[in-house]
């Protein structure tokens, strides 16, 4: 047995799968230590903040400022103030004003602005231009002028006693603060979700819950499958008929349908992560039962089992020492697959709104469900669902890789 697991690490597939899985596990264990706190705390007021580093504006004003003169600072400000649509509109105006098309470069902010300053005249009324469009050009012009006009911004704050506004300081265009000098900086590598919660923190926590669900569901399914398979295969007779009758019923009705029905019939308030895991486990033992039974059927007539019987061993001892070790490798592989399908089943259930109803722990499926309910895909909030999909894919991929790797070790015929 020890040898087999040593051998497993010679299989590249197993090693890759195991490494990915170990990385996920390590992240799950270490990240909460580095970033403690409730993963479901709603820190952002508003939905779907973009991923990035959030710097407190208030604290930035207090931080030591340094003067840095950058020649392209103004251009950058202007560029930021002009959308692509604005640039095209500007080009249209310039064309009407008689600037040849080859002189205009849409991407050259500096050139575009200088042309604009030269040719824009709010009093001109080009033929066929609507009033709305003329107003738009005026607003655009005002905006561009505003970006570059004021050299300093004066900050006022009310006096605590009199309530009169007092000058607190001035911020010049050339003032810079070091981000590390700002007291409050919050990195949100994956932004926030629809409830303003830190996506990364939530994802790590969800990953743990989903793995727990997978483990419990896989454990239950494998245990039931193994037990029924051993009983049906080794004892046979009426018991076999009885077990196979139920197994066949469960095979014919897709287990996912049963899963949905059971989940639906359990009261929402009682559907925690554990309940969901148990329900998933209770509906996915069928294939393990069938294959364990098939293997036991072929094992029970082998001579080593006969010899064990002739040595007077009890039924339980024969099952434990002469049958189980021979199917152990298979059971381990089935268990790995059951974990991965348990995680997927939870994701599917939650996507349908039948997953664990919980306000304390997120799961991967629930995160998908929230992203869908709040139309993350329509809002362009890719960070609300792609990382979740990727995590689910990575977990199942690594588990399946480990499984095929083990398969190669256990079935030498598959080694090519």
């Amino acid at each position: 047995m020890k040898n087999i697991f040593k051998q497993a690490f010679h299989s590249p597939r197993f090693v890759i799968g195991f490494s990915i899985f170990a990385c996920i596990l390590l992240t799950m264990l270490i990240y909460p230590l580095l970033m403690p706190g409730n993963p479901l705390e709603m820190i952002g007021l508003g939905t779907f903040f973009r991923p990035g580093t959030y710097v407190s504006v208030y604290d930035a004003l207090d931080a030591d400022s340094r003067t840095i003169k950058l020649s392209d600072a103004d251009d950058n400000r202007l560029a930021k103030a002009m959308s692509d649509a604005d640039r095209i509109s500007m080009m249209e105006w310039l064309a009407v004003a008689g600037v040849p098309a080859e002189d205009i470069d849409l991407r050259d902010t500096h050139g575009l602005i200088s042309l604009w300053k030269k040719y824009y005249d709010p009093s001109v009324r080009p033929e066929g231009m609507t009033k709305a469009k003329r107003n738009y050009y005026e607003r655009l012009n005002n905006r561009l002028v505003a970006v570059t006009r004021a050299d300093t911004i004066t900050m006022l704050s009310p006096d605590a006693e009199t309530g009169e506004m007092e000058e607190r300081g001035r911020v010049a265009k050339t003032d810079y603060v070091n981000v590390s000098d700002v007291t409050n900086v919050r990195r949100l590598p994956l932004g926030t979700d629809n409830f303003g919660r830190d996506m990364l923190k939530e994802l790590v926590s969800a990953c743990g819950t989903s793995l727990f669900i997978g483990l419990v569901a896989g454990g239950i399914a494998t245990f039931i499958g193994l037990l029924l398979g051993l009983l049906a295969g080794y004892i046979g007779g009426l018991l076999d008929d009885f077990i196979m009758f139920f197994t066949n019923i469960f095979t014919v009705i897709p287990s996912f349908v049963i899963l949905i029905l059971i989940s639906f019939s359990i009261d929402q308030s009682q559907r925690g992560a554990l309940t969901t895991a148990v329900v998933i486990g209770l509906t996915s033992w069928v294939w393990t039962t069938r294959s364990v039974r098939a293997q036991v059927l072929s094992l029970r007539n082998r001579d080593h089992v006969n010899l064990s019987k002739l040595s007077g061993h009890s039924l339980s001892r024969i099952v434990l020492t002469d049958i189980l070790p021979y199917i152990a490798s298979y059971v381990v592989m089935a268990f790995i697959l059951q974990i991965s399908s348990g995680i997927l089943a939870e994701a599917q259930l939650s996507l349908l709104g039948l997953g664990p109803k919980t306000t304390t722990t997120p799961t991967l499926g629930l995160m998908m469900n929230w992203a869908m309910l709040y139309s993350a895909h329509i809002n362009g909030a890719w960070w609300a669902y792609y990382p979740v999909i990727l995590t689910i894919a990575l977990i199942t991929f690594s588990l399946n890789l480990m499984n095929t790797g083990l398969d190669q070790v256990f079935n030498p015929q598959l080694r090519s």
Partner: protein
Amino acid sequence: MHEGSNRPTDNRPTENCPTEKRVCLSGTGVTKVFGAGSRKTVAVDHVDFSFNEGEMISIVGESGSGKTTLVKMLLGLTSVTDGDLYFMGKKRDIRTRRRKKAYWKGIQAIFQDPFSAYNIFKKIDSVLLDCVHMRGGRHLPHEEKIRMISEACGFVNLKYEELTNKYPFELSGGQMQRLMIARIFLLRPKILLADEPTSMIDACSRATILDMLMKLRAEEGMTIVFITHDLGLAYYVSDRLMIMEKGVIVEQGAADEVILNPQHPYTKQLLSDVPKLTEPW
């Protein structure tokens, strides 16, 4: 004619005093049917036999004639479709586990393929220890158990020190089969069913195995049922022959009679495959 055969006649105590013969295992109309309907196979078809104590009986038949199935039925490892079996004069009753265990103290087997007869996850020691325990030696001191096991290994020319802590797959086929005989030596059953014990191992080990079986009979007075597809070999070792064809015993009798006076065409055909049997070597 008799002078021509080179059988070890001195190895047959039963022939000298036929009045002492006691039937230890017999059966009437023993039948085994596998499957049902169109896929029905009659593996053993209404077989009658009786084995006497201390005898060496050979069951000869080509592959697929139902020899192994008969052995499994005699051992109680497969159910008997039809017919009755008698063990030590009484109808065999192995319906409970306790009775089965008691039955297996009296009847044991050596299987055809030594490579599949061992649990590959168990060390050799445990196989032999199980035998000591089955003979009621569970509470013996450890040294005494080791002594018994060493003695058994010595009986089959193996050294316990070289076997201990090894797994079955670390041995050769011949060694494994000898270990099976060591097991029998420890268990000392009344009846030993040896199902083609030499067919899967190399020619060198074959003679050793046969010698050891003979020794078991000579020293322990064991009844040995020797299953083989080789009529020559069967004639060489046994007192009585049973010829089996497609599940039916077509001919049985004293070894000399069957070989020198074959009645059934199938026996004659088998004999013609071993031409030099009745002539001097």
